């Protein structure tokens, strides 16, 4: 029997069968040029700052954590045993590429790095209604308030 997290075929079957809400249309817009855009990261790796409460096991924790731009004391709250945590242990950028964004800003490839970034837990209820109706819009408002132009979503 193969280890679930390593079995791409099993992962694909799982992702094809996972219950999802239907969306009538895509929210598509044209952002300002990248070299003028402020970029924020939203990750589903359930990151939180060391000493914080973190995330609950299961699929009922839909809150998000705010990660200040300078914070690197980050804990991986993605607790699944079927998840390869070695990459994050070696380099947070493989999940949360904050240092890469800083370097791209220094080279004027992106316009700037947001002061605040955000982490959700990837394991959510089948309808994702809590994130769609509650914490998702709240998080988006925070980013709009800061003047974020582009959001980089890193799924785990």
């Amino acid at each position: 029997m193969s280890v679930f997290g390593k079995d791409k075929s099993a992962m694909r079957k799982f992702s094809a069968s996972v219950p999802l809400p239907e969306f009538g249309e895509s929210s598509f817009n044209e952002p300002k040029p990248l070299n003028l855009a402020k970029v924020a990261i939203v990750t589903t790796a359930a990151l939180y700052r060391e000493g914080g409460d973190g995330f609950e096991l299961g699929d009922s924790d839909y809150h998000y954590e705010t990660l200040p731009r300078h914070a690197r004391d980050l804990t991986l709250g993605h607790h699944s045993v079927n998840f390869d945590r070695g990459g994050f242990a070696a380099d947070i950028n493989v999940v949360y590429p904050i240092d890469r964004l800083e370097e791209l800003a220094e080279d004027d490839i992106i316009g700037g790095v947001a002061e605040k970034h955000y982490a959700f837990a990837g394991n959510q209820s089948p309808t994702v209604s809590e994130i769609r109706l509650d914490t998702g819009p709240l998080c988006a408002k925070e980013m709009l308030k800061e003047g974020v132009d582009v959001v980089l979503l890193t799924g785990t």
Partner: protein
Amino acid sequence: MREVAERTKVPRALYTDFPVGLSLGKPRDKQFQYEVLQAAFDLLEEPEGPVIREFPVSISSTGSEPLVCSLPPRMNTELHPAVDEAQGLKAAYDRAYQRNRRTSVGMKISAEQVPEALERFVRIVEGERWDEVGFPTRSMYGTVHDIRTYYEELACELAEGPIGPWATEEWFYDGTEAGQVILKARRAMRDSDADQSIWFGLAPAGRE
């Protein structure tokens, strides 16, 4: 998960055929990470969506180079090898923590408690009942999370060469005394009256 992005009509998605947990593909490889980010940012030029583009490089979940990571010699032969090993690795864990200023140990126990927790698993392997060795209710999953994370974080400090997909997990369960004790304790619980919800999550699904 490409299927999820398609079904939810994500406006712009870069599909990366990478193992779970490696969103940017390769840890400690700045150039590769830049290439992934550039491919993602290129999607901003698309005039219409939703659009999904595939990153041209795949990374397999299996077959990566094994982790090259030395284990300490026995220091105290009166201790079980797993307990002795965990104690002997504490300096490497501390060094990793000092260097990175972060740790994901702490779901249930601290780094200092890792040897003591392993001692409890040793007692299960040696025949004691799983519910009489001192684990608080429903704490075993989180305790193993912390033991494995302790080992994986120090392994990244000690290892030579790149950290391949699942390399630290394979090193932990296949190459360390601690991983072996946890697998043996898991089997002992499976073969006893322990509910599957107690023992199943102590190792990835599919491991014996």
